[in-house]
């Protein structure tokens, strides 16, 4: 099955809310070997002027990849997840992600480019609070390898 070229320009609406928990921030921070106290200790985070624990700079990938799953699991997309390679990633933080945030993501398929038998797909997740405050924009380029690639 090949990649559906009509994916370009498609959007997927905001899905379920992602509740950012303190323990998830601590778990993610440990998983990327982050040691800054603002990820672990509420008082340390507050001393820097944050309302609660601060998520590591790549934490938004959890929310972005949940949004990407809508596209990858869309039977109409033609994407075989076992052939997906992460090619490029960008994060723009409009403000830090803080424990207690309720986040939603709207996914946009910005481009689909055929490459051999595969395709490079660029998606953008606009992450905001459930109330509509912009929090982060993430851009991911994934390469779906064709047969023999």
């Amino acid at each position, binding site marked *: 099955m090949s990649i559906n070229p009509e994916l370009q320009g498609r959007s997927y609406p905001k899905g379920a809310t992602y509740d950012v928990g303190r323990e*998830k921030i601590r778990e993610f921070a440990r998983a990327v070997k982050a040691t800054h106290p603002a990820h672990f200790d509420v008082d340390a985070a507050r001393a820097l002027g944050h309302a609660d624990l601060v998520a590591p700079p790549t934490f938004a990938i959890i929310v972005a990849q949940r949004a990407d799953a809508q596209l990858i699991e869309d039977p109409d997309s033609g994407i075989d997840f076992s052939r997906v390679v*992460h090619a490029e990633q960008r994060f723009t933080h409009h403000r830090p992600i803080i424990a207690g945030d309720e986040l939603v993501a709207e996914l946009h398929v910005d481009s689909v480019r055929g490459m051999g038998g595969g395709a490079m797909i660029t998606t953008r997740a606009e992450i905001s609070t459930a109330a509509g405050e912009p929090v982060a924009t993430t851009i991911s380029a994934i390469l779906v390898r064709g047969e023999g690639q």
Partner: protein
Amino acid sequence: MDFAELTVGQEIGSRTVEVTRADLVKYAGASGDFNPIHWNERFATSVELPGVIAHGMFTMGAAVQLVTDWAGDPGAVSGYQTRFTKPVPVADTDLEPGALIEVAGVVGALDAENSTARIDLTVTSGGQKVLMKAQALVKMA
């Protein structure tokens, strides 16, 4: 750290990240990315990889700590981007690390108007560049 005292090309430091397969399992759980190429040798080799490889996002996430520590506040990192150029194979070991990731950073650009510093990271494993154009934007106080 004072923005006025920064110069382009200035080194911010370096660090070595030790990686084991247990670290990849932890990252899979923490991130929700359970792609078997990051924990299943049999599956990884069946899709023509050299073996189990680290999540690109593990490498990206671990590399930025150098910037966070330098900035003094993880909330100051307002942007971060990279290209994933080479996989990081992680060997099946008992006690020793299965891979080492070397991270070094320099001030790549300064934007006085917005008080931001761009930190350019060099990230290698086994002598190969594994991230390309790894750049973090730090909002200075």
